[in-house]
């Protein structure tokens, strides 16, 4: 099964991809967070600079990059989340 998701980029990841948001079609689901990350790195190779210091957010829930499996529905929001620096 595949889904079409909206991917949002923030902070340093905007500079690395040149993009703030995009629609990504045909994303396999269910998918591990590692495979989802790799899919995004394939689209924007410079994202690999963030490797080890980034997490994803799926439907506004943080997901560590690893074996955790997520299910994605059409229209779901995915975000690339570099280290936070609020406050």
């Amino acid at each position: 099964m595949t889904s079409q998701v909206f991917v949002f980029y923030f902070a340093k990841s905007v500079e690395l991809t040149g993009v703030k948001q995009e629609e990504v079609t045909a994303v396999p689901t269910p998918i591990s967070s590692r495979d989802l990350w790799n899919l995004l790195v394939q689209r924007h190779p410079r994202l690999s600079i963030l490797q080890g210091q980034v997490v994803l957010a799926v439907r506004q829930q943080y997901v560590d990059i690893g074996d955790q499996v997520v299910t994605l529905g059409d229209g779901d929001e995915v975000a690339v989340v570099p280290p936070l620096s609020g406050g």
Partner: protein
Amino acid sequence: MSDERRDILKLSRDWLPVQDVVDAVSSASCGSISVFIGTTREDEVDGRKVVGLEYEAYELMAQSEFIKLCGDIRERWPTVTHICVHHRLGWVMVGEASVVMAISSPHRHDSQQAINHCISQLKANVPIWKKEVYDTQEASWKENSECPWAAVAEG
């Protein structure tokens, strides 16, 4: 119980009036309002001076993470009455406030403890980012040591 407990997060490009944040948590049942103001320091980094900060946020998720944070605060300090955080987005010059938070409680212990926890947890969990801009026109994205996936993460 008279007033409904308020949890307010406002993200705004406007300058933050501290009084507005204080007024948002005032209550006849509260004898204590604790306030934290985070201001932009004129740091010097490798011979370059910080002239300001540029903030951005994943606004929808900042709101949902803030609600979780307020739940955590209220579990730890059940007498906390109202919580209000105003955080700036966009350009904040050196010397200006980037964040103002106020928490009220009947007696001072809970609001004082809660305000400390609030700023630490905001730095760890709420999706907001800042970029330091230097007098050389260079810029660099900052990372909070409280954030578990930062390179310089604590513990």
